[in-house]
């Protein structure tokens, strides 16, 4: 039996790699996506263009503004002389924020009064706006502390020591790149498996297979095995890229990671083969894969936290295998998780995988004709 499955697997690989189109699908989109996602998909802000409307001539305002000039996050893009210029700067997207310091800024500070710093932010992209306000706030807080210290003002009653675990500089890339391992492994495995039976149906080779002494189970396994090998290969490649190229720390145990990958592939291949046994043409297979992929990715927590979704949708995400795998891969990469901590992710993936494969097997037998 194994000899025949190996022959099937070999054939599957030859067919996949010799066909220009399939080779393209397996190699080009993942690479392009890896690079684009890793470099472009970041919530970190750099070089935020801003303008200053400074009515104050004193030294304190210059001290505060020097902190903005010195930050890599901000880039001065213009000055403002009149309040009336502000709207056009913001509206036309020339700057994303304007800092407004009133005429008595230094004087108020020296007199021990509160000196207002007005911040006008373009809220069209609410996420950038929120992040940006955070950056400004931390600059202002730092300034306040050092001002209080140097001018003998009462310091705050308690000190806040902020530390972020696992990702001390809060780099988006550390979050996104491990996520891509899950994303691309899913995409490639799904496309390869969901097209495999349809391709054979279109080419007429499926009938030719069915009249050989091969059993349906062997044919099915002959489709599962290549999916595993390709998924593992693709996943390993991106893991390697993440560590060596993007320098994301890999803190946990590789076996724990690969155990997760294995279980995840089970469910991905199950879905792919289900689509495959229903789809008559490759076109339908592709459409089916696309229809599964978009919600699976959006609801997995790949880019936005599941916790922010409405309760109903949060329940829905429990069915999404990518959700669990992302927790595993990010856990192993950044948190250094080991097997023990990951059980709550392993078993749902195993369950989903078994159900999917069983369903795929059932469909496979009943849709042979």
């Amino acid at each position, binding site marked *: 039996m194994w000899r025949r499955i190996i022959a099937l697997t070999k054939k599957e690989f030859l067919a996949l790699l010799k066909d220009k189109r399939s080779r393209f699908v397996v190699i080009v989109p993942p690479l392009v996506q890896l690079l684009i*996602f890793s470099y472009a998909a970041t919530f970190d802000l750099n070089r935020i263009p801003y303008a200053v409307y400074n009515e104050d001539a004193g030294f304190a305002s210059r001290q505060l503004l020097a902190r903005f000039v010195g930050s890599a996050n901000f880039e001065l893009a213009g000055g403002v002389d009149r309040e009336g210029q502000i709207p056009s700067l913001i509206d036309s997207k020339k700057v*994303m924020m304007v800092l407004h310091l009133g005429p008595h800024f230094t004087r108020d500070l020296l007199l021990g009064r509160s000196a207002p710093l007005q911040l006008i932010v373009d809220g069209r992209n609410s996420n950038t706006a929120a992040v940006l306000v955070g950056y400004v706030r931390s600059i202002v807080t730092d300034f306040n502390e050092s001002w209080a210290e140097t001018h003998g003002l009462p310091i705050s*009653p308690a000190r806040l020591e902020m530390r*972020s*675990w696992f990702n001390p500089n809060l780099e988006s890339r550390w979050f996104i790149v491990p996520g891509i391992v899950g994303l691309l492994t899913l995409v490639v495995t799904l496309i390869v498996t969901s097209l495999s039976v349809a391709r054979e149906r279109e080419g007429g080779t499926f009938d030719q297979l069915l009249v050989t002494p091969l059993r349906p189970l062997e044919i099915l396994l002959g489709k599962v095995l290549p999916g595993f090998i390709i998924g593992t290969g693709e996943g390993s490649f991106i893991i390697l890229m993440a560590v060596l190229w993007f320098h994301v720390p890999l803190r946990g145990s590789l076996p724990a990671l690969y155990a997760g990958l294995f279980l995840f592939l089970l469910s991905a291949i199950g879905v792919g083969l289900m689509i495959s046994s229903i789809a008559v043409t490759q076109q339908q297979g592709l459409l089916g894969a696309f229809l599964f992929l978009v919600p699976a990715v*959006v609801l997995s927590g790949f880019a*936005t936290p599941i916790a922010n979704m409405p309760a109903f949708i949060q329940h829905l995400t429990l069915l999404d295998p990518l959700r669990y795998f992302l927790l595993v891969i990010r856990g192993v990469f950044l948190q250094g998780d080991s097997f023990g*901590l990951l059980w709550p992710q392993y078993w749902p993936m195993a369950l989903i995988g078994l159900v999917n494969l069983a369903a795929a097997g059932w469909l496979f037998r009943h849709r042979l004709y």
Partner: protein
Amino acid sequence: MKDGPPIQLMRLKGLMRKEAVQILRDPSSLGIAFILPLVLLLIFGYGVSLDAEHVPLAVVAEQPTPQTAAFAAGFARSRYFAPRAYSEIEPAEKALRHGEVEGIVWLRGDFSRKLLAGEVPDIGVFVNGVDANTGRIIEGYLQGMWNNWQGQLAASRGRPYHFPVELEQRVWFNPGLRSRDFLVPGLIAVIMTLLGALLTALVVAREWERGTMEALLVTPVRVPEILLGKLVPYFLLGMGGLLFSVAMAVWLFAVPLRGSLWLLLAASALFLLTALGMGLLISTVARNQFVAGQVAIIVTFLPAFILSGFIFDINSMPVPIQLLTHIIPARYYVAILQTVFLAGNIWPVVLPNGLALLVMGAFFLTMVRRRTSKRL
């Protein structure tokens, strides 16, 4: 000898009628035009949100006192946090590690004593930084909470405390910072890309696959007629999809439409022409549906998603990628969409971006005209 007029109305009408009947009869075209926007808008409108609320947070008070209670009460009142009380740091750390809480606020055993003695106690704050964006948002919330607490504490002591520099923030266009308000307009750009580029690329590739293109080409039909016969029906279909999406955005998701609908429609028409041009151009290269679909997804859909500024800020991308975004039509359309929806008819944004769309649309359509010939 002359070839006669480049466009003959009867032939054009015939081609357009055929295309219209095919659209109406083929559920997948209508599906891409109406079901896909619906599904995408629902998934993104409800599923994607960057607004963290009710973040589970461990508040560790090693020795509960009125002071720690006052501190923790702030979290309980906030809609941003769902605090959980711990009396020791170890279980809280474990909870953070297991993902049960997103952050820890640690009030050590000597917190009240030091506070009352006028010393400065340290408050430990640990945030799970795996999701950097969420981590940063939580840090921001915490800082705000802490500022409030300082103010209240000072007030209760009868010595109003003020910060040297008081930050007054004014967020224009979206004061509530609702992420849906910027995601939904951007999503319309993605949907229009799918509609314009993917659908036409697939439809033309289908004609090649089924051999009907060959039959068309040997009739006396002219190239502009073939192209217009495809452009006009799918343009109308796309505008239908657009109106549907805008209606959903305004009525279902309550996104404000501050600019004029006509301006929105005009910009969308420009973008749609560009997208149709890209779709037709792809189909001159890829003559089967599989390849056409793949190419369309890679060169139109993905960039519209990631490189258009729809979610991710273009200014923050590495310079080479920023340069790349200039050749992505969706970039200009997203800028117009977000502005017209949230800010209004801001001509300094609409005009340059609209001009860029016009240039790109003209470029793609010219390319299509030049690359299409009546030869195989």
